[in-house]
């Protein structure tokens, strides 16, 4: 098991390095000089040059790249061009907000998605099934920003249940609406996948055997069918958890949450290269980590899978 983890982590290094290289090249070839943006519309060329020098932008691209890679290996991702905060610090300040949001959204998605999928499969072609799958299609198709705006109007303005956007003084109530909105899409995906996976499983012989030996239907479904149906669901949960990070961009923007999604938008608009690279590197790392955790969780659901 440990060997497997180490092998996977080593295998991830070229992926992450490749991502850094691509992002570095992309951020440097797009037009738009960060020093120029920083100086504002009216800029004194001598000052712009001075700032370029301070940022290290006057060095040849290859030197900048090597410097960046060297520093990245020691977790030194440089400083934000915009406010001189270190990129690591900028990420860490925002990380708790994004993690809380992503985690809560995934909890919402699982709590809603898995039971909906199970019941839909068990009661295939019932009104419940049609209703749940309609919800799932809606959840997958409805744009996050649209759902977010409508939910604010409903829960903040009309019903007054939620105080507003932002994080207040850290109260959990501020995370409820964003989490539900962000969890809607993965929840819908999980519901659909659980349903189809369950449908496949409950038609198999061993389920018939379980029923034949007189087990209660609840036990058949929850213990025998669900456990086997969960492998593809866990895979999608892993991928969607990492995918949520792209969803947080819009959700954090609309709900004014100070997380990594907002940071990445601001950084892109302002050509804050070190922050852009930091965010992408962090996201790549999370994707790798999420996939690894998913792979490692398989033996819990299917003891036939073993990592030696």
């Amino acid at each position, binding site marked *: 098991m440990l060997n497997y983890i180490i092998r996977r982590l080593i295998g991830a290094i070229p992926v992450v390095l490749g991502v850094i290289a691509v992002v570095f090249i992309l951020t440097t070839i*797009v*037009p*738009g*000089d*960060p020093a*120029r*943006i*920083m*100086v*504002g*519309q*009216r*800029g*004194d*060329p*001598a*000052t*712009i040059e001075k700032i370029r020098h*301070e940022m290290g932008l006057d060095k040849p691209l290859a030197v900048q790249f090597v410097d960046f890679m060297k520093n990245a290996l020691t977790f030194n991702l440089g*400083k934000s061009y*915009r*406010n*001189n*905060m270190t990129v*690591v*610090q*900028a990420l*860490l*300040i*925002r*990380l*708790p907000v994004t*993690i*809380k949001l992503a*985690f809560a959204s995934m909890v919402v998605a699982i709590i809603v998605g898995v039971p909906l999928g199970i019941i839909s499969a068990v009661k295939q072609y019932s009104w419940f099934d049609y209703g749940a799958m309609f919800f799932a299609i809606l959840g997958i198709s409805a744009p996050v920003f649209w759902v977010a*705006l409508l939910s*604010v109007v409903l829960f*903040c303005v009309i019903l*007054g249940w939620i*105080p*507003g956007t*932002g994080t207040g*003084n*850290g109260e959990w109530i501020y995370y409820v609406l964003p989490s539900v909105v962000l969890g809607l899409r993965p929840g819908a995906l999980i519901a659909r996948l659980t349903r189809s996976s369950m449908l496949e499983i409950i038609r198999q012989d061993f389920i018939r055997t379980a029923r034949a030996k007189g087990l209660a239907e609840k036990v058949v479904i929850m*213990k025998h069918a669900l*456990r086997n149906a969960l492998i593809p669901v866990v895979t999608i949960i892993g991928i969607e958890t990492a995918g949520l990070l792209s969803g947080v961009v819009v959700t954090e*923007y*609309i*709900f*004014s949450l*100070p*997380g990594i999604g*907002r*940071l990445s938008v*601001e950084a892109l*608009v*302002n050509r804050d290269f070190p922050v852009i690279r930091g965010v992408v590197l962090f996201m790549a790392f999370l994707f790798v980590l999420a996939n690894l*955790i998913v792979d490692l*969780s398989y033996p*819990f659901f299917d003891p036939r899978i073993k990592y030696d």
Partner: protein
Amino acid sequence: MFKKSLVLLIVMLLVVTTLAGCGQKPAQQSGSEQQQQEQQPAAEAPKNILRMAIMSNPPKLDPVFATDTSSSRIIYQIFETLVDYDKDGNVQPLLAESWDISPDKKTYTFHLRKGVHFHKTIEGKPTANGGREVKADDWVWTFNYILNPDTASPRAYFLDMIKGYKDYQDKKTDHIAGISKVDDYTLKIEIDYPFAPFLSVLAYNTFNVLPKEDVEKYGKEQFNFHPVGTGPFKFEQWVQDDKIVLSKNEDYWKKDKDGNQLPYLDGLEFRIVTDLAMEWTEFGLGNFEQIEEVDDPYYADAKKLPGFQEGPTLGTYYYGFNLTKAPFKGNKALRQAFNYAIDRKGLIDMVRNGRALPATGVLPPGMMGYDESIQPQYTFDPEKAKALMKEAGYPNGLKVELVYNTSEGHKRIAEALQSQFKNVGIDVSLKNIDWGALLDATDKLEIPFFRMGWVADYPDPDNFLYVLLNSANIGPKGNYSGFNNKEFDDLTNQARVETDPAKRAELYKKAESIAREEAPWLFIYHYTTHSLTQPYVKNVVLPFFGEYSMKYTEVKMEK
């Protein structure tokens, strides 16, 4: 199975909490970040704290490096300059009580206000300066710091007329010769040549007095996160992308006319709400006393509210013609044709909800040198535009590409003008690039037809006509059209050093007239500014200079 699942769940929870915890560890190393992470007790309804929604996280709270309005908004509350503007744009005393100008207009002697103290505490902790009084030495140190080439302040060059600026920049001396202390409360500034808008430039909010001890304690990079000034409000907390909290400066020097200590408010809380629909919604919910921007869909409703104010501001929205490139190079008739082809009033009513004033020249109304009667007046005259097109050598029309920086607002305007141009045979295609790319390209005079706008740094026509169209500023300094007109240059150069206001106004009128005649821009509209506060917020004065420069010293809440 259940046990295994439980173990898995616990492991996942541990991973998540560890990751979340990662974010808090480094916070313990620095004061402000520690505060940023600390969870506070549930919010009580703030009593005397004005809560305002702003659109973006300011990059800088250090005035020496700030160049944008979102930073300026906060800086105006924490820091103070020698002089200030009144609500009509006239220079008035702030930390200088009065000043004398020598007969040759090259020496300014400022008599400093006594009893002005730097902030004694910020973020709940004592500052390095300890709340001591501001004296002339502080101003000498501050100007030397800002103008020091190693500081690399992006706005230092605004004061390039101060004696010894160049030697200091070239590191030939270790201080700037033109700034000296006469006594503890008298400061002398010498400039190389008479420069009429000098006092206006000093009011620019880079040139605030700074406490040496705190700047040195935090250093150039960290002072941004721990700003210390003399203003009516002190810095308390900055949660990146979330909020900035300021508290009342109990030792502020100013009192109201009845002798009451100012400011009236206990504090200001600026919360960053990026989505304008949310700003409006939350204002309606009473979550904010003020919001930065009323977006077009809500404008009609906002106008009916008692706390809504609107007025002209010193800014011009235009499309620049590149005078160094075809088809606009050497073709005045074509440039004029463009100016006659558009219906500004219709555009403003339809696309801007009536929130702008038609522009037929460079200078905005209210600015010295602005005169409604200056010719030519670019009215909407498609026939004249067609005739001029013929004269310009394009009887069958022409195709041209407009490049604008990506924004929904700019796009709407561009599309409306595109259809107006079509009526006179001008086929405009649209291309959007982002702001950085547009600046890059216009600096190098690469784009024939581009969107641009200008809002005054200081309320003087020099900041428009000289900066944007004098040939000395071709390129990144502001003249993106490459306009190069000898007579215009002479007039604007002369007006810079002329100190008689009446003569200056005449010079600027002539320069404005040349600019209109030569039409280096498609003049579109002059900006307006607005503010929206709750009705219980009193003494709100909408500054002519733009809502972002509002000061809250005398603002009070009467709930």
